[in-house]
Every structure is written in structure tokens, then in C-alpha cells.
């Protein structure tokens, strides 16, 4: 259905720049599986959190000073003297946590329902790229307040590149813009921290393009058979996403207004001091599992390679998972291993928060090994040996029950 309007102005614009037709096509009519659960809210939620981060971040940048002598003081200036500066900063700092929380649920939803399988592999790849850029952005943002954890976190992470044979040291010097972490480092981190969110916006647009090509996966993991399986995005999913957004905002507000420093490290309220190393250097919670993998290998280069592999292995997931069935709902064996995998990731998180000694060292190594075993051995084997339960005929069948009336709001299937 073409875009209908009585407004001459809108028609005039739309004839020359079809933004109204596009919005109609991809936000209003866009046919969506009718059986999406609340786990499908987290994609749009992540998009909204990205917008919150960009808006608060732009205003914070108006008051922040990217200089090693003034950065810490300028953050305190924001907290004390800028009108609602405390609100902006707490929103932005906790917003980063919220962003990762939402995105991790989004990713695990994809794991469970096989959203990475054909024909959505490129959609999945773009998602991994988004995660990587998010991590880089969050890391550089954490350096900006120039507290103790900022400084020492930056030291640990940039030093990882020194593990690269032959050119490692040169790369680190190049990253730092000098022979130690200093003002050039802080300046470039600020510049990149401002740039990368817009790269994220671009990647998100590509992610959406890839999504709209074949539409959302759904809890049953089967393709839509006809118009009776779809409903238009608006009003069904707009209202559902908005309800989910409000619930999210309640939780986020409670965190931000009443426990704004709960997820932060007290050490970052101490100005950076190159001469005093904190007792435990830890990243923010959302990077802890990767930090645990990094430290589980006694060899520096090995640890770095393993840490990067833990993300890059996700690019192979569409082929490592050999099962023809998408949804975990019909995969009795996969279900069990999926649960163990979630627990494994939580264990890695706990290990990452603790010094790599004694029990944590051993548990960290086992959990790291299991992380890779899950992808490289368990997923391919489960796909071969598992006997999936029978799939339903269509999406409408389990939703309406056999022989029920056709959907009252049929949407045109995408050509």
C-alpha cells in the first residue's frame, strides 16, 4: 500500500524524497511475526539506549575538558556546578551499563532462538561488529574521567598490544601518542569516544536493513508461511516496544537515581596517579568475562589471542551450529547446553572480578576452556546427534490453535 495523505506539502516532499513512504513501509506496515515474545523488545531498547547515550554524551562534552590536568576536575565541575550535570553524568555512566545489559540479553536471545542461521548471517555479523565497537567506545569513555581506574585500565588494555611479536611495542607507542599514557592518549580517546557512537549508528542502520530483508526471527524459529502469520509493526509492536521501554526506564531510573555508583569502582573517584597502582585493576562489569579469559592464559600473547577469539568465534557460529532447526524450543539437548553456557558466562564474570589466584585461577581456566568447547565441539555435535521435536506447521497454528479464524489484521507479505 502506497503512502496515503491529504497534505499537499507532505505529498510534494514525498514525491521528491520518499521519507514518508519509507517510514510507512518499514515502521508502520512492516510485516512482523505475530508471535514475538518480550525477548524481542531488547533490540529496539538497545537502539533507544544508544540515543540516550549520544544525547547525554554530547551535552557532557560541552562541559568536559580532555586534558590530564583538568579532566578529573571538569567531571567534578559537571557534578557540582553544571545545572543537572549530575543527572547527565549518572545517566551516561549507568547508561553504558544498561546498554550492555540490554545488548547481552539481545545476543543471548539470538543464541537461543538460532537467529544467526540462514538467511540472517550478515545480520548476525553486523551485530558482532556493533558489540566490538560498543566495547571500544565504553573502554575509551571510562578513561575520560581520568580517575585511578581510568588510568590503570587504559594501561592494562593498551599494553595488551605489546604482546604482538616484533611490532608490539611500536604499536603501543603509536596508540599512546608518546612513550607513556599521557595527554595525547586522553585527547585521542576523547576524539574517538565522540566518533565511534556515530559509527554505531551507521552499523545499526545496516543491522536494520539486514533485518528488514527477511524480517524478524520468532520464538518458533520457522519461516512465515503467509499473511496470516504476520501483523503490521504498528500499532502492535510499537505499543509493545513502548510498554517494554517504560518498564526498562523504571528499572534504569531506580538504578540511576538511587544507586548511581553501585556499578562503579570507588577507585575512580581518586584522580589518576601514575605512581600508585590500585590493589585490583578491574574493568567495568560488562567486560569482566573477557578479562577473565584474558587472564586465564599464563602467556600474554596467548591470553590476548584467546580474548579476541572469544568474540571472533561468534562469526563462525552460523556454521558451528549444525542443527537445521533454529529455535531452542524444539531442541531438547541444546536447551541443556544453552543453560550451562549461560552459567559458564556468569562464572567468567565472577572470576574476572576477582584476583587470579587460588580457586579463581583454576575455575577461570575451566570456564574459559568450556566457553570454547561449547562453540567448537558441543554445538556441532549436538546438531548432529540431537533429534529435534517436530516443528509446528505454521506460526498461526500454535498461536490460534488448528482451524481458528484467520488473523483479523493481515499484513502484506514483503515482496
Amino acid at each position, binding site marked *: 500500500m502506497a503512502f496515503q495523505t491529504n497534505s499537499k506539502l507532505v505529498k510534494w516532499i514525498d514525491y521528491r524524497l520518499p521519507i514518508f513512504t519509507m517510514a510507512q513501509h518499514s515502521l508502520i506496515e512492516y510485516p512482523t511475526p505475530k508471535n514475538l515474545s518480550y525477548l524481542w523488545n531488547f533490540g529496539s531498547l538497545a537502539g533507544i539506549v544508544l540515543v540516550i547515550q549520544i544525547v547525554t554524551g554530547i551535552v557532557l562534552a560541552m562541559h568536559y575538558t580532555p586534558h590530564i590536568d583538568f579532566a578529573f576536575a571538569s567531571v567534578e565541575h559537571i557534578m557540582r556546578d553544571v545545572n543537572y550535570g549530575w543527572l547527565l553524568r549518572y545517566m551516561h555512566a549507568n547508561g553504558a551499563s544498561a546498554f550492555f545489559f540490554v545488548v547481552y540479553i539481545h545476543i543471548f536471545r539470538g543464541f537461543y532462538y538460532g537467529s544467526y542461521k540462514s538467511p540472517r548471517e550478515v545480520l548476525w555479523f553486523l551485530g558482532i561488529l556493533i558489540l566490538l565497537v560498543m566495547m571500544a567506545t565504553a573502554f575509551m569513555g571510562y578513561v575520560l574521567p581520568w580517575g585511578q581506574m581510568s588510568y590503570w585500565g587504559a594501561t592494562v588494555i593498551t599494553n595488551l598490544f605489546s604482546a604482538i611479536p616484533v611490532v608490539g611495542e611500536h604499536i603501543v607507542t603509536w596508540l599512546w601518542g608518546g612513550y607513556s599514557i599521557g595527554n595525547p592518549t586522553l585527547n585521542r580517546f576523547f576524539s574517538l569516544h565522540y566518533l565511534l557512537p556515530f559509527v554505531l549508528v551507521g552499523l545499526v542502520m545496516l543491522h536494520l536493513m539486514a533485518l528488514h530483508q527477511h524480517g524478524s526471527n520468532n520464538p518458533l524459529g520457522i519461516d512465515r508461511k503467509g499473511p496470516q502469520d504476520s501483523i503490521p509493526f504498528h500499532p502492535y509492536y510499537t505499543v509493545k516496544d*513502548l510498554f517494554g521501554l517504560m518498564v526498562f526506564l523504571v528499572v534504569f531510573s531506580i538504578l540511576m537515581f538511587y544507586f548511581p555508583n553501585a556499578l562503579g569502582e570507588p577507585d575512580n573517584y581518586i584522580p589518576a596517579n601514575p605512581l600508585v597502582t590500585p590493589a585490583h585493576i578491574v574493568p567495568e562489569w560488562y567486560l569482566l568475562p573477557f578479562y577473565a579469559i584474558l587472564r586465564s592464559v599464563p602467556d600474554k600473547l596467548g591470553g590476548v589471542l584467546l580474548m579476541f577469539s572469544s568474540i571472533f568465534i561468534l562469526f563462525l557460529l552460523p556454521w558451528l551450529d549444525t542443527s537445521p532447526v533454529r529455535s531452542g524450543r524444539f531442541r531438547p539437548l541444546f536447551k541443556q547446553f544453552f543453560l550451562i553456557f549461560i552459567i559458564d558466562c556468569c562464572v567468567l564474570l565472577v572470576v574476572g572480578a576477582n584476583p587470579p589466584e587460588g580457586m579463581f585461577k583454576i575455575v577461570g581456566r575451566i570456564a574459559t576452556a568450556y566457553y570454547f568447547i561449547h562453540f567448537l565441539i558441543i554445538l556441532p555435535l549436538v546438531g548432529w546427534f540431537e533429534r529435534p521435536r517436530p516443528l509446528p506447521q505454521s506460526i498461526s497454528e500454535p498461536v490460534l490453535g488448528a482451524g481458528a479464524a484467520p488473523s483479523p489484521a493481515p499484513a502484506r507479505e514483503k515482496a
Partner: protein
Amino acid sequence: MRKQLTAAAVALLLAAGLGGPAFAAAEEAVPSQHWSFFGAFGTYDRAALQRGYQVYKEVCAACHSMKYLAFRNLEDIGLNEAEVKALAAEFQIADGPNDKGEMFERPGRPSDHFKPPFPNDQAARAAFGGALPPDLSLMAKARPGGPDYTAALLTGFKDAPAGFKVPEGLYYNEYFPGHKIAMPPPLSDGQVTFADGTKASVQQMSRDVSTFLMWAAEPKLEDRHRLGLKVVIFLLVLCGLFFFAKRKIWAEVH
């Protein structure tokens, strides 16, 4: 799936519980106290803040700076404009250069920041045998435990247990990481005279100054609590509206 989700949620909660407090091991656990600024409706006790400021000014400020605070901020703890003006004028603040290119001293103004006890960190270190008394502006947020920790530290000076060697110039403190602290016990009973007649016990002073330090580190806490309540109530109402809107719109689909 529901069973899986529940199990995953439990695992996540466990992870959150174990991930956080693992650092405090080995030190004496800091006793938690009740503070008026806790909770969704928490506010600062103005009388405690003013007593706390007096303790800071008469005791702590001899060694510790508080450079992110300005005299004008003291209006928040209940001093009026004239009192703040008079208080600021007690201090001689370095300013300049003037038209002749010379630095000079003038009486403080409300917009001036608290005058540090030493002109720079090196001077402070020189005066204390190499140890730098930390700036106190953010102390209540810069240590695990916050106000509980500062209050415990100030009352935690004890004789070292048998066999524990405390080097010359250091003191034993139950709650300080490593127990060897360069700060001598700063408080003693009756050290200050409170205008409101409160008895200045070490316990009382440590509590009051901890309240003051919390305010200094988080001066917008009351604004935050007030705004947070409005925002959460507003969002809960919206949640309800969208819940029913969603139910109505989806009724025909299910």
C-alpha cells in the same frame, strides 16, 4: 524455556552477588551504620552537617585539603549568605597578578574554594615525612563502604595486636587496608566545642564529619532523591497506561 530463564536469572543474581564484594577480603569488616541520607527519601541532617564542617575546619583542615568545595556551597548545609561571607573572609586567599604584575593576598569571597593547608602536594609531603594527606572532597565515594568506612577509620585506632610490627611514624588502625596508617589518631573527646551543645565524643565527631564528607562528595543527593521519586512515579503511571493500551490493541490478535 521458563525453567531455563529462571535458572539463568538465579545464576545472574549469584554472579552479581559474588562479583562485587570480593575485594574487601582480609580487612576487618566495616560496621554498617544507619545514615539519614540513606533510602529513597533520605536527606542530610543539617545540624550534623554543620557540626561535621566544624570538625573538618578545626581538625581535618590542618592537613587535608578539600579543593572541589567552595565557601558558597556551605549555604547548602544551612548557613545563610552573611555567615558564608564572614566565614570566607576569615581566610587570606592568594590572587593576582594585579596591574603591577604582582601576586597578592586578599580576604576570601564566597566564590573561592576552600583554602588548602599547603600550597602544593610537595609541600604537604615534605611536612609529613613523605606521606600525602589525601584531598577529602570525594573521600566518601572514593573508598568502599563510604561514610561507614570513614566513621570506622576515625574510631578504629587501637594498640597493635601482639606480634604485629608497626614501624616508627605509623599507627595501627583496625579498618585501614594493611592496618598501618600514617595519620595519627586525629580525634579526642571534647576536642571541639559544638555551638548546639552536642557532646563532642570521638564517636559523635566521627559520625558528624562522615556525614559532612558524604555531603561534600555528593552534594546533589537530595535533589537526586527528590527528582528520582517523581520520575519513577511518572514512569510507573506510564507503564500502567501502556500495559492496558498494549492489552487492548493485542486483544484481537490473541
